């Protein structure tokens, strides 16, 4: 049991920090228009990027460097989990197979889940969503397969190589921008070649391309993390 002294000390500290934060936040009025850079984005997003979804245009185009960093963070998480949970020989130790409802339902639903995830990331520039939720949906499909069948495993080598190649393609898109437009991550599709019209599927410059890459990457990475966590080392081979 935690001593009363420690608990009350923690509560007092937290109340002080909370009050200090509240005082700071009271100087930032809620609900008022205080946009500076945000207004510029809203005014110019349609003609500068070709997308109607301002948030995805910011994430991929205006502040695309941050998204590159974010993709890297997920890659690090997947690699790190693989490095920490690595054993010489690992296999699945689940013994109870899923019920009939689960196995039949999964067999029917899996293709639709993957299709829905793909829909989310292909339409990132027109509807809310984008690469990350799309990839997470696809990974959920794989998780269902893991839960329903005790012998299912994703093809490791294929997924790892896909992850690496897709990541390289994202940086390569940025480097092509450096070559064509002489700036890293320059949107050459919309700004140099002027492909597509605003509001249709073929628009938004390189946003759909990058989101497809991100969707594939996130899907394979999260599935890899699930796979790593669901396996245990076969004893005697540490």
């Amino acid at each position, binding site marked *: 049991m935690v001593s009363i002294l*420690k608990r009350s000390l923690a509560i007092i*500290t937290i109340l002080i920090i909370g009050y200090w934060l509240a005082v700071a*936040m*009271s100087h930032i009025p809620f609900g*008022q228009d205080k946009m500076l850079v945000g207004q510029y984005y809203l005014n110019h997003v349609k003609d500068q990027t070709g997308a109607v979804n*301002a948030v995805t245009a910011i994430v991929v185009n205006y502040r695309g460097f*941050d998204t590159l960093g974010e993709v890297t963070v997920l890659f690090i998480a997947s690699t*790190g989990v693989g490095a920490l949970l690595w054993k010489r020989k690992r296999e699945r130790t689940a013994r109870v197979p899923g019920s009939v409802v689960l196995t039949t339902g999964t067999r029917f639903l899996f293709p639709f889940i993957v299709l829905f995830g793909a829909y989310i990331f292909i339409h990132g520039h027109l509807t809310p969503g984008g690469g990350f939720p799309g990839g997470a949906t696809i990974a959920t499909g794989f998780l269902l397969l893991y839960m329903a069948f005790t012998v299912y495993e994703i093809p490791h080598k294929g997924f790892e190589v896909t992850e690496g190649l897709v990541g390289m393609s994202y940086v390569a898109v940025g480097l092509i921008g450096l070559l064509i437009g002489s700036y890293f991550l320059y949107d050459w599709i919309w700004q140099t070649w002027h492909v597509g019209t605003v509001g249709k599927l073929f628009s938004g410059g390189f946003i759909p391309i990058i989101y497809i890459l991100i969707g594939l990457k996130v899907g394979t990475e999260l599935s890899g993390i699930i796979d790593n966590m669901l396996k245990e080392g076969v004893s005697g081979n540490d």
Partner: protein
Amino acid sequence: MIEISAYYFGAIALIMIGLYAVLVKKNLLKMLVGLSIMETGVNLLLISIGYINGKSAPILSEGVGPKGAVDPIPQALVLTAIVIGVATTAMALSAAIILYEKYGTLNIEEIRRLRG
């Protein structure tokens, strides 16, 4: 008392609850859940900064013009922050798995005692 909006108050409350769990709890998984709650609170705080009364989502298709949308930047920031939170949680859980394999317990005082 100071004037503060309900959204800010809720976000700060979540952050404080999460911080309390991290500081006081002894079980590793409970500390990680507290960390997760704290990150959720911070995301909520970030989004509520961008809200403008009476405007709608920043998707500029039919009907919503550039003057009729809320601030899109905090939403982009939170997208990134959520992913980073997921990555941290995944790493922490794998470290917890290793600790459980080595020491047989998830209680941090037990672990400190066993390590000597």
